[in-house]
């Protein structure tokens, strides 16, 4: 299954933005499997970030994870203040305590402009971004979270398998 649409300038990117190796994660901030994958991805990017472009797209399952969407919007609102990845990390690192209030506290800790942040989380453009990510996942055959795509193709495995793949391919 192929990633649709391909990675573009609407995506949040970390690592080497010009790398040939492009990894996309579809994730849900309240999904425990995504929470467990997060430190593995961090370690992977610490080690292979210079050779890897990493993208995160939102895939919130809102009916079983009611805080997934508010968390996704908080990360997108942080992105408007150029702090997407800081918020992304902070949410996953505090996942067991996820709450609407926590999202505001994290925004405070990251020293975001809170008034702006409070306004931004209700912006329809941010809702559209999250919906667009979800729709992209749906059309790309995402069947659960986290789902990874390597160079546009669905990767049949979890974060640990991905780490191993990178380790063996760079040896």
């Amino acid at each position, binding site marked *: 299954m192929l990633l649709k649409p391909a990675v573009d300038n609407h995506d949040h990117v970390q690592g080497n933005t010009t790398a040939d190796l492009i990894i996309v994660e579809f994730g849900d901030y309240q999904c425990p499997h995504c929470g467990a994958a997060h430190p593995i991805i961090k370690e992977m990017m610490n080690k292979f970030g210079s050779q890897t472009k990493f993208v995160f797209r939102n895939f919130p*399952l809102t*009916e*079983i994870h009611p805080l997934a969407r508010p968390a996704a919007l908080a990360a997108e609102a942080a992105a408007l203040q150029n702090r997407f990845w800081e918020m992304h990390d902070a949410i996953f690192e505090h996942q067991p305590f996820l709450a609407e209030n926590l999202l505001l506290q994290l925004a405070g800790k990251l020293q975001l402009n809170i008034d702006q942040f409070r306004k931004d989380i209700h912006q329809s453009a941010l809702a559209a971004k999250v919906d667009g990510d*979800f729709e992209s996942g*749906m*059309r790309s*055959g995402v*069947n*659960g979270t986290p789902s990874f795509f390597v160079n546009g193709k669905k990767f049949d495995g979890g974060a640990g398998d991905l780490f191993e793949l990178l380790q063996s391919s760079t040896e």
Partner: protein
Amino acid sequence: MLQKKDVAPDFTLHATPDQKISLSEFKGRNVILAFYPADWSPVCSDQMALYNEMLKYFKQYDAEIMGISVDSKWCHLAFSQSRNLHFPLLADFEPKGEVAKKYGAYNEAEGECNRVLFVINKEGIIEWSYQSPIAINPGADGILEALESLIKK
């Protein structure tokens, strides 16, 4: 397993303990039938939870989705409540698996439905069918492509 261009056999099954649904009620609308092995097993839950998030996209194609398994109406009720599902789960319970058998979606050895998807058009004709390996959640991309091809006709 029934294929494209086959007539979708009609059925009447419990959707809740006091409500039955017939396929024929949906003439004039597109229907997605998702046969799945069992309530509560992890893969199925993910599959139904996934479709639950996609209802508004299915609606854009004038399509209704229904899950079908051999679990009873009471089991479906509890499962549906626990996952907050907003679409019907039909109980192919008595005679067990009768509808699944008509669609060629029954697994005799397990006594469960296989993981099979059908997209049925407004005239009640099957437009697309797909059997996924039991342990693999098929996602929704195939369903969406089938619905899109219906629109283009």
